[in-house]
């Protein structure tokens, strides 16, 4: 008899999702799907609001990386208020935002690795679930767990000084920033008492990269064979090809490294990206238009960023990047679990950038905002911790938002996440007489590699028909509601 296994909720990810696995009578996995079961409606209820409210309102999507939404919205509004993109802002405006964003990347990556993923690596994905969590890590590796907590705290302090609050601040405003960095704030981060200073953070981030590399050397076969499949990769890169989380052009490469999107201006993103709605998830499925639905899907996030960029513009992270690239002979890396490796290199890079910015006197200047000729449409892209984040707004002559479109990082990873869970469930479960808890956790390990933020990613409002079927105890259909 056919069986259906449900993993719900998926644990140690941001937001709520479930996985359904359909097995046939011979226990072969037929189909596995990641369903996003919560719903957000920000694109709809931001309509009618004053445009300057968007960066503060829309960031409420999430408590983990609100800074990304805050800044992506602010970047879109920079275009609307005539401040242009990227270099249009004052030096202080742009660098304060960068500092905020790299602080955010640092805290989010630290949170993901130490709090959410490290239990799988340090304790084993098949360990007892009662201890396979951050508390278990804290008991067995107290020093490491403390570092994880303090690294996140440091990143949150950076956000606090730039956005005004650790979570849901108001720093970025259309055309710039509402504060600079005081000398006291700078010195707190630059020269704080050990261990709360940026030098220690760089040291610890380097240790984290080594930790993953050590794990990899001991578990190479498992890591390399886990949900490994070719894909396209998409991210922003700086105009000279450098890794840049705050601003750049859109670049995509295929699994062999060929450019399939060649450094295009993101104001034209809608010419290149299309979204498909499927009737079993609130999360849309984006793809590159010119390649079509079947070939145009792509990955975003740390793995994609390191596959798209040409180099990393800070020395320690660049050294790690060279080793990372050498591993696949300069070709794109399509190993799902290598995403953790890439994420930790980005953690190191973020700490290095934070130090560079803290040493920059532009952060103490007072020229905070620029405005020019007002328009009625703007697009803002940013590399959020989980990948490329798109914000697109239109306003009317009365300054009210009339249209908002958000393509959230996790949404971009919808297709690859589904492929990963499908692959892992087929590899781990097909033909097995008993489906064990570690097998189910392996499916979650695949999802966690993408560090998905499910709460941010659900935006199919008005496009997905509501379809509810009520079944009796003998599977007979009792009622059927369709909107």
């Amino acid at each position, binding site marked *: 008899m056919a069986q259906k296994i449900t993993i719900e909720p998926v644990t140690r990810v941001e937001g709520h999702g479930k996985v359904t696995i359909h097995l046939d009578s011979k226990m072969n996995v037929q189909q596995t799907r990641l369903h996003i079961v919560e719903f957000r409606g920000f694109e709809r209820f931001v309509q*009618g609001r*004053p445009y*300057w*409210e968007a*960066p*503060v*309102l829309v960031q*409420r999507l999430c408590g983990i990386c609100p800074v990304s939404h805050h800044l992506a919205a602010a970047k879109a509004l920079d275009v609307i*208020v005539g401040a242009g993109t990227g270099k249009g802002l004052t030096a202080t405006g742009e660098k304060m935002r960068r500092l905020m964003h790299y602080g955010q990347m640092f805290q989010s990556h630290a949170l993901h690795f130490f709090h959410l993923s490290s239990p799988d690596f340090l304790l084993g994905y098949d360990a007892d679930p009662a201890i396979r969590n951050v508390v278990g890590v804290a008991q067995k590796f107290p020093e490491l767990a403390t570092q994880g907590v303090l690294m996140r705290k440091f990143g949150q302090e950076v956000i606090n000084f730039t*956005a*005004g*609050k650790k979570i*849901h*601040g*108001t*720093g970025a*405003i*259309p055309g710039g920033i*509402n*504060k600079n960095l005081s000398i006291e704030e700078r010195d707190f981060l630059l020269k704080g008492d050990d261990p709360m200073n940026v030098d220690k953070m760089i040291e610890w981030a380097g240790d984290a990269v080594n930790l993953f590399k050590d794990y990899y050397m001991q578990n190479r076969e498992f890591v390399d064979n886990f949900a490994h499949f070719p894909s396209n990769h998409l991210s922003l890169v700086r105009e000279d090809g450098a890794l840049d989380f705050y601003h750049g052009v859109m670049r995509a490469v295929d699994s062999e490294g060929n450019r399939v999107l060649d450094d295009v201006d993101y104001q034209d993103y809608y010419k290149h990206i299309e979204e498909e709605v499927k009737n079993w998830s609130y999360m849309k499925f984006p793809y590159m238009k010119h390649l079509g639905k079947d070939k145009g899907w792509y990955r975003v996030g740390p793995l994609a960023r390191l596959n798209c960029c040409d180099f990393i513009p800070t020395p320690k992270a660049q050294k790690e990047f060279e080793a990372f690239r050498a591993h696949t002979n300069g070709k794109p890396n399509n190993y799902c679990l290598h995403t953790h490796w890439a994420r930790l290199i980005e953690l190191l890079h973020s700490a290095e950038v934070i130090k560079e910015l803290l040493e920059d006197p532009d952060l103490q200047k007072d020229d905070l*905002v620029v405005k020019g000729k007002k328009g009625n449409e703007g697009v803002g892209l940013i590399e959020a911790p989980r990948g490329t984040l798109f914000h697109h707004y239109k306003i009317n002559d*009365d*300054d*009210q938002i009339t249209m908002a479109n958000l393509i959230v990082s996790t949404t971009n990873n919808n297709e690859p996440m589904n492929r990963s869970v499908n692959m892992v469930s087929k590899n781990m479960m097909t033909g097995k007489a008993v489906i064990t808890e570690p097998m189910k956790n392996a499916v979650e390990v695949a999802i966690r590699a993408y560090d998905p933020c499910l709460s941010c990613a659900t935006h199919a409002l008005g496009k997905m028909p509501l379809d509810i079927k009520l079944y009796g105890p003998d599977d007979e259909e009792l009622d059927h509601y369709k909107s």
Partner: protein
Amino acid sequence: MSEKVKFTIDGKEFEGTKGQFIVDAAAENGVYIPVLCHWKDVTPSGSCRICSVKVNGRFMTACTTPLEDGMEVESETEEIQDIRKAIVEMLFVEGNHFCPACEKSGDCDLQGLGYRYQMMVPRFPYAFERRELDAASPKIFLEKNRCIFCKRCIRMIKDEQGKSYFAFKYRGKDLEISMDKELAKNMSEELAQEAMDICPVGAILRKEVGFAKPIGTRKYDKMPIGSDVESSQK
């Protein structure tokens, strides 16, 4: 010459000027009585009732009651505190107040009082009234969801001929704040800022400058509402 009189608040004796409003006499003596509709320099309206006190055993509004010799005022009793809290709760449920994305957050008197009276979950059901936004003015964004009908703007924001920029429209449960569209076209930036500043909530927003004030520098970020009065207690 103004006549000095003696009065008590919660049993403590103070001196004030005969005829001044209780709320002002209390403030001069370092006792904070909350206000929302009251504003110095304009005729009080006593409409919000948040300043309710008991004077010689009877409920009165402190912003409209002139001081008399020997008055015994009760203000910080458990009964009155709860009434004030109930008023704050009613104002919250009657409108649509979402502090997290409101640019007046930290500068908002209603929010400040919500904190002062430790409002957690309102005891009244939310009305969820659907109110339209008025964005037609070039300087002001009128967020009708947040209006608490204090009439401060109607009484204070006027042109050189004394004509008010703001007015009430409709009646009863349909009552709403509105703006004279013709007058609004020529409103100065200074007057728009003044209108935003005197609004005790986030109903009147000056266009295109939202969130320019960083967190930490807003009115109630460091000093809770009323603490400026209370810190001057003699």
